[in-house]
């Protein structure tokens, strides 16, 4: 439903059809959502096995290739990077903490040099000692395997780009000392979110000598609470506890409670939800969407073990400012005034939260001021119409791009209807999901407006501001689909981009002001933020389970109920 990369690729065909027919069969009950408190003290039991149903298989469980949410869920507790995220629900879970490094990096040379030290005595799950140079090996392997987010590294680390291009045999910007464990990384320019980059499992050390090929069925050894085994691609895999990990005593990283976590790939989300509702399976994967037909039944029958957790995904329509009619600010203002953002929420069955700012609600810098375009549940069509008349754009042709998958299809149709109501001559162009984002990100198609979404790669506003950063405009794979090129935004970003993640709070007000500015410029038509289902069987102790805002379900915190 979101962008084509760090997101589930769902088998909509059968599941959607199934959901359609279950709709008239399913009993509907009252709705009462419960919200899971952050992890509390343990009340469960150690050991045991939990089973998870997952609708989309991970693209790969190899940490240097896996990029989807499903891969991340398994990999972040199997491959601990130098830095990682606190195992906590909510905003606390966005805090970067030391992982395999002894401490957060020492930043010097004006933000261009990061120095870390590897903890001593670490071993991979196969017993091989971990060395500092294994980090370099992991970065090189990640680049050569073309990991989905590799551009974050090629654009920041000195020599990474040359290494990827094959013009260098090693990454000149990374130096390590195996005897001291010291790791020094030189950046091409200060980049405040570099801590976040070091927290990707894709740069977690793997043993030197691991082949430079994706190993989907036999993922390499790592350092983490669990070990991935018995991978049958597109069918199942297991995680078993790593007996070595507890002896490393890494603060803040759970060593796991369950002995085994079994994951079954089951493409029919209706069956997936029914199995969890029926306690046949212990978890509905957070990367999947609960079928709308079953949502009220689940909320009613499983109120104590189901909730929709907010996640940092922004849903919006891009408004291409490089061409008519959205090169006219009045047109952009008109569409922002004309839509009722709660209508989008209703069309999604309540699975998104309405909003108007680019920065999702849980992010540092998300403005607390009311939207510049009125309340979220209102729409002022008459004012919007007058703006279109004032701009002499009545009858102007607009083609709206979208995917024909629920609820995007409904969102696109609603949006197109609003555009028509305020005076545009509207055409809808649906593109198959497999080519949608390459299409709207291509200068060849150069669409005027269309559906888009952005799920965070890491909890830093910088990641979201790729969408309006003029430097993101490129002929293919374009992320700045509105072609925003605003000197004020560029000037602010040049200052904010370099602020280290650890000091983000100190610039929260600047981010907030910038985000309010972007909203008031109507650079995008933001309408909401995502949620993900946290849905367990009765067997899991819901009170201790952590829902990470980055990696969703934190399997290492799960315990069986007493």
């Amino acid at each position, binding site marked *: 439903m979101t962008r084509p990369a760090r997101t589930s690729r769902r088998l909509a065909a059968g599941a959607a059809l199934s959901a359609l027919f279950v709709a008239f069969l399913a009993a509907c009950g009252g709705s009462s959502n419960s919200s899971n408190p952050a992890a509390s003290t343990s009340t469960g039991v150690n050991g045991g096995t939990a089973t998870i149903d997952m609708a989309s298989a991970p693209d790969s469980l190899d940490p240097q290739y896996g990029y989807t949410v499903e891969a991340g869920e398994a990999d972040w507790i199997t491959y601990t990077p130098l830095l990682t995220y606190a195992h906590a629900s909510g905003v606390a879970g966005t805090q970067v903490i030391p992982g395999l490094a002894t401490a957060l990096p020492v930043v010097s040379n004006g933000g261009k040099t990061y120095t870390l030290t590897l903890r001593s005595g670490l071993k991979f799950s196969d017993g091989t000692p971990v060395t500092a140079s294994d980090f370099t090996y992991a970065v090189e392997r990640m680049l050569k395997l073309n990991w989905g987010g590799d551009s974050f590294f*090629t654009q920041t680390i000195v020599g990474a780009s040359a290494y990827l291009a094959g013009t260098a045999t090693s990454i000149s910007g990374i130096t390590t000392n195996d005897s001291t464990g010291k790791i020094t990384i030189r950046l091409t320019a200060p980049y405040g979110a570099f801590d976040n980059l070091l927290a990707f499992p894709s740069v977690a050390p793997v043993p030197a000598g691991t082949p430079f090929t994706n190993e989907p069925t036999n993922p390499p050894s790592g350092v983490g609470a669990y070990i991935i085994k018995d991978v049958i691609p597109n069918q199942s895999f297991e995680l078993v506890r790593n007996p070595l990990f507890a002896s490393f005593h890494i603060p803040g990283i759970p060593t796991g409670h369950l002995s085994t976590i079994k994951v079954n790939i089951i493409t029919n989300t209706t069956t997936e939800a029914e199995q969890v509702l029926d306690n046949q399976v212990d978890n509905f994967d957070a990367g999947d969407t609960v079928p709308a037909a079953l949502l009220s039944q689940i909320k009613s029958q499983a109120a104590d073990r189901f909730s929709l957790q907010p996640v940092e995904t922004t849903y919006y329509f891009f408004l291409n400012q490089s061409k008519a009619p959205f090169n006219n600010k009045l047109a952009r203002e008109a569409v922002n005034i004309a839509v009722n953002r709660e209508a989008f929420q209703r069309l999604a069955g309540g699975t998104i939260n309405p909003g108007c700012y680019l920065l999702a609600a849980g992010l540092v810098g998300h403005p607390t001021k009311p939207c510049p375009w009125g309340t979220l549940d209102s729409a002022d069509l008459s004012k919007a119409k007058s703006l279109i008349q004032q701009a002499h754009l009545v009858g102007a042709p607009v083609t709206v791009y979208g995917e024909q998958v629920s609820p995007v299809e409904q969102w696109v149709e609603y949006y197109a209807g609003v555009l028509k109501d305020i005076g545009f001559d509207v055409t809808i162009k649906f593109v198959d999901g497999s080519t949608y984002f390459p299409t709207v990100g291509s200068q060849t198609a150069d669409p005027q407006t269309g559906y888009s979404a952005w799920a965070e790669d890491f909890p830093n506003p910088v990641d979201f501001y790729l969408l309006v950063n003029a430097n993101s405009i490129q002929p293919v794979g374009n992320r700045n689909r509105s072609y925003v090129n605003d000197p004020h935004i560029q000037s602010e970003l040049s200052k904010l981009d370099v602020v280290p993640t650890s000091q983000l709070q100190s610039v929260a007000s600047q981010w907030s002001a910038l985000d309010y500015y972007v909203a008031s410029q109507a650079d995008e038509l933001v309408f909401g933020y995502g949620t993900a289902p946290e849905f367990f069987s009765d067997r899991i102790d819901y009170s201790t389970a952590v829902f990470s805002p980055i990696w969703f379900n934190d399997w290492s915190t799960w315990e069986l109920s007493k």
Partner: protein
Amino acid sequence: MTRFIIQRTAQMVVVLFCISIFTFLIFQVIPNGNPALRLAGQAATPQTIAAIERQWGFDKPIYVQYLDTMQKILTGSVISYSQQINVLDQIKRGLPATISLAGGAAVIWLLFGMALGTLSALRAGRFSDRVLAVLSLVGISMPSFVVATVALYLLAYKVHVFPLSGYVSLAQDPWQWFLHLVLPWFSLSIIYVGFYSRVLRSNMLDTLAEDYVRTATAKGLSRRRVIVGHVLRASLIPLMSLWGLDFAGVIGGGAILVEVVFNLNGVGQYAAESIQTLDVPPILVIVMYGAFLVVVLSAMIDVLYVVLDPRVRLTA
């Protein structure tokens, strides 16, 4: 027979060649279908995209890409773009589920189709014939995914008679294998049962009017012998041809929706996943594999024709 086999093999090679080219070209002309764009991820730079194109050979001329892909298919080293898994291994892994599904369903739809078609023909014009006609039309009109979903909801989720989903191998547990396949078998069969019964009824009514049937009756043969030995045998010939092609279609990955709804992890489900991600190598292999099965089973049916009707000679 040797000549027949040689000619059929040559035909098969031509068919597979044409299908492979056609399938490969379809994915080349899809707008923005460049796999490098999808492999590169959402934050990719043109440099990354170019690196992937170089690495995978997407920057080469189409005919070179085609030849490279075919070479990998024929040597068994072809891997998928999205997951980089050996495609042939994946198909081999899914084949037991697909064969189990197709085999059981094909037996069901043939037996039920024959039974209902025969009954309908013998009672043509009567009330029972009309009832069977309505039931057949209902069966033909009901998409298999509808039957599958309703059956799954009622018999697996609500009543717990059958498991909710998945496949258990025959070697692992024969009883569970059976239980996991009952609903998929019937869901897949219903449409074919309706269709086959109508075709057989029509064939039998035509055959019943043939002179040789009248002659057999005049000679004093029992009605059972006339029906089974003459009418049914002759009427089954076109049905066998259909059965072979349908069976090949299903075993070649055609039961996509049923496999997806019941999560059987068969070849059809793999095809569906690959289509959704526009993953050309698996799609190409599955299409060629399906075509191969259709051609081979078609040849086998031709041989069976000779057994059913000695007047037929084997010609390619």
